[in-house]
């Protein structure tokens, strides 16, 4: 089976996110009021072969822990979509 993978990397809760803070402060100047909780991260997309969805998820989570994120300062959220 093949899966399209989306890994969203974001600063961990409690870790300062100066990019998010700057965007949040800028929005009211453009007339967008009431925006809170802006966090800036990155998205990493790729395709992976695996026997099952669980196997794919487990492999991607391993990649996140070892390479794609720095767990000291970053969290990751993994989304998998089976390729039709």
């Amino acid at each position, binding site marked *: 089976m093949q899966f399209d993978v989306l890994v969203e990397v974001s*600063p961990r809760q409690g*870790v*300062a996110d*100066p*990019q998010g803070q*700057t965007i949040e402060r800028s929005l009211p100047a453009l007339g967008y009021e009431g925006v809170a909780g802006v966090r800036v991260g990155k998205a990493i997309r790729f395709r992976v072969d695996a026997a099952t969805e669980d196997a794919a998820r487990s492999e991607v989570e391993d990649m996140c822990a070892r*390479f*794609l994120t*720095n767990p*000291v*300062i970053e969290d990751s959220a993994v989304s998998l979509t089976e390729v039709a």
Partner: protein
Amino acid sequence: MAPVVGVVQFPGSNCELDVIEAVTALGGEGRLLWHGDATVAGVDAVVVPGGFAHGDYLRPGAIARFSPVVGAIADFARGGGPVVGICNGFQVLTEAGLLPGALRKNEGLRFLCTTVELEVTSSRSALTGSVSVGQILRVPINHFEGAYTCDEETHRRLIDNDQVVLRYVDNPNGSIDAIAGVSDEAGNVVGLMPHPERASSELLGSADGVPLLQSLLDRAAVSA
């Protein structure tokens, strides 16, 4: 015999020759270590210099930690060998798990290129063994991702175990507890954001990096 300081060269390093120049001026022998060679044989100390190893792709140090030389540095460090990471080198050593914590983007999102005052807060480390606690040193910084961060438990351990090596007098980047440099538990692995090699002569505006590099040479001479 002059102690040999191995200075790692990754694709994208840009301070390796400055470190060799500074070490040589103090009577040491500097030797380049190519990142693709899985050995640090023949050196008495290792410096991981500043720059943009592997283009800082993904995160500073994230790719570099998998370079073959880093495994050899880890073995050298476990055997008590002195290892110092400067700026990007500090980022590489935290990514490699040889030092606790991480470096995040500076508060205010400013790239900082200036000279700052540092307070020496431990003389136990390989970089500060010949310096007095409380001494103030003027050393340049040059970084975007230099705000030291770690969780509270790690911070407490750093304090309890005397692993905070240098603090900024006037915290320029939002580092936790104004930390500019830390060591591992044993004190032989040290990382710092400031560049002592750029403060190695009065001609450069400050010679305050000399006692730090001299401390490293003194430590290296023990095994030379």
